[in-house]
């Protein structure tokens, strides 16, 4: 990592051989140095322009939106004492964004399914998966057929997944869709300005 060798002692060799003696050491070595020593140079100004502005807006928009998407997992103990108004308002605003997420269980390990469901399903799920793995390409038609069936089934599972969460936790909806942590709020303001 950077700057392990801030002091003289950090070098493995005799630095005096380089002509670096105590007397000729840089100033910083003398006495207690300031916590933030005077910086010699200033940062170069940031690039500005349409590209930069747009990417800035995109960044803030992504941040805002990710809060409202179901991938933002809230801890169980998320009972916060937040102003009702803001909450209600932001929820209304985000209504378009609000959606439930039903993972495609074909693409995920069975063990990640909600618990009681997984236990119930495991027996049936496993042979099914095995079967699918053995399928060859010329059986495609059958495969698609099968997939559709699965999808129907999974849609149901998805709903159950949500319901189950509701049971587990009363404020599920609130905590799940609530406008995330405080800090994103500021950028939400900016987000409104970012139009296409």
């Amino acid at each position: 990592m950077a700057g392990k060798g801030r002091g003289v002692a950090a070098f493995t060799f005799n630095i005096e051989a380089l002509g670096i003696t105590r007397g000729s050491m840089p100033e910083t070595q003398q006495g207690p140095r300031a916590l933030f020593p005077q910086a010699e140079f200033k940062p170069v100004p940031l690039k500005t322009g349409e590209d930069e502005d747009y990417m800035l807006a995109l960044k803030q928009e992504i941040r805002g939106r990710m809060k409202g998407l179901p991938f933002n997992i809230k801890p169980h103990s998320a009972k916060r004492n937040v102003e009702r108004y803001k909450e209600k308002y932001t929820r209304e605003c985000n209504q378009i964004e609000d959606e439930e997420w039903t993972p495609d269980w074909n693409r995920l390990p069975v063990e990640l399914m909600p618990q009681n469901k997984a236990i119930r399903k495991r027996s049936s799920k496993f042979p099914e998966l095995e079967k699918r793995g053995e399928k060859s390409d010329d059986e495609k038609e059958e495969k698609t057929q099968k997939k559709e069936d699965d999808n129907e089934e999974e849609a149901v599972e998805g709903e159950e997944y949500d319901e189950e969460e509701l049971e587990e936790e009363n404020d599920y909806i609130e905590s799940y869709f609530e406008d995330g942590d405080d800090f994103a709020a500021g950028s939400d303001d900016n987000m409104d300005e970012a139009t296409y």
Partner: protein
Amino acid sequence: MTAQEVRLCALLLQEHFGEVVEKVGTHLLRSGALNLRALAHETRTSLDLVKKSLCVLVQHGMCTFGPGRRGPAGPLEYRVSCERILYMLRYPRYIYTAKSLYGDTGELVMEEILQRGQMTMSNTVRTVADRLTQNMEDGQSTDYNDVVTAFSRLVETHFLQRCPPVDTATSKKTVSEVPESPASTITQPSQPENYPDCYKLPQIHLTGRGKRRRSDEDGDVGARVAKKAKLEHTEACGDEGIYWQVNVERFHLHFRHQAIISAVASKLDQTSSEIVRTMLRMSEVTTPANAAYTQAVSANEIFRAVPPSYNISRPILDQYLTLLVDDPMEFVGKAGDSGGGMYVVNLHRALANLARATLESVVQERFGSRSARIFRLLLRKRHLEQKQVEDFAMIPAKEAKDMLYTLLSENLVQLQEIPKTPDHAPSRTFYLYTVNQLPTARLLLQNCYKAVGNLIDRRLFETKENKRHLEKSQRIEAILGSLQASGAEPAQLAEVEEMITAPERQQLEALRHHINKLDSSENQVDETIFLLESYIKSTSCSR
């Protein structure tokens, strides 16, 4: 994985997926591979939340799973990719690039898929069409077909690819240690491109136009519309189960090419850069992603492919090519004489030069132009004694000594001892200063990760400091919103607006300025990160 990488991953995970995913993700980063139970136990997080977190991470391509240490009979193990998580920093650039290549539609397609990790084509088309319609004037809407076109072009140019199918058979890629395993576990092939249908568009049965949702409708109606839309979205379109993800590698090639083109434009001129752009475009399909140089193209072919607007005659093109080959940066090389001369773009050489310029830029701005002179001198001459440094750089002994010492203590410059006698006596030892480009690039890359982490930390701090003001302003905006919806008098609205005092407004304005600056910096530091990462990667595959 370094501490700085883990820290930045944690901040990015927290920002995009919340604290639970952050906890699970960073723990996995630190531990390598873990099974579900161990993960839940070690993070002291409820099994249910760990499962959800893993779903999120897998969905976004940041986590893979496969048989673990105890083989296929044992529990599955999960593994996260630090690299993938860090790419979140680059999302704005991916989206912006899609916009500049394929317009607003391309932009929204990219944005939707990045935010959701993976989506089916039909679902993307509907969502994007709705969003586009939402921003149109009343009575207008976007045809699904327009979105299908943009989506298809993104697939044809490989910016989007199918998520590799989840196989019940063992993937040879993820678990090389387990040669044979029964098909009872699901594993993921890690290389999407190994899958033949990677860029094959499915037939979808989807016609119609984007739907508008009115924001001023009251909640109940809105919810009903949303419900209806959701139902519509679940209609079968024939591409169920075929998910698409963003091919970041393809974007990185594009960024690399952009960087080379703009370097040529800056060093030589516009026309030269256009010639290089043409060469890169011509060889895009035929050159493997990690190749050291592009497939050779002949001057004849280049001549035919250069945009006619540049109006370059054949002899002039030859002159430009000669100058490009002559240039010490060696962006372009000559590979033969057939076809009026065969030319390549030296991709890795260009990356090395860009990285070198990046290191020089850091030394220049941080330590001044005279230190930068010493740094460049050492980059060129490899090994120099202090006296030689003074003489070549024409910098007085004392100053040169101080500068070398500072660069040495920041690890930007290294020192080699060459003893003349076996006793290593300092008086009989040569001390040679040197700069090693690759380790220095690695060091600066770590500095970049830390810098971005710092920028995010500062942003969180600034927002926290202004929490009260922010909440108040949001509350007031909420009131204003509902007042407006209920058709309140302008005077009434003004009264509410005045609830925020002038100093408060000022403070909010300052905060907005700060946040913008910090965010913009994150985007711009990522450009440094990209260059250094690409260079470092190129050195490992050119050997």
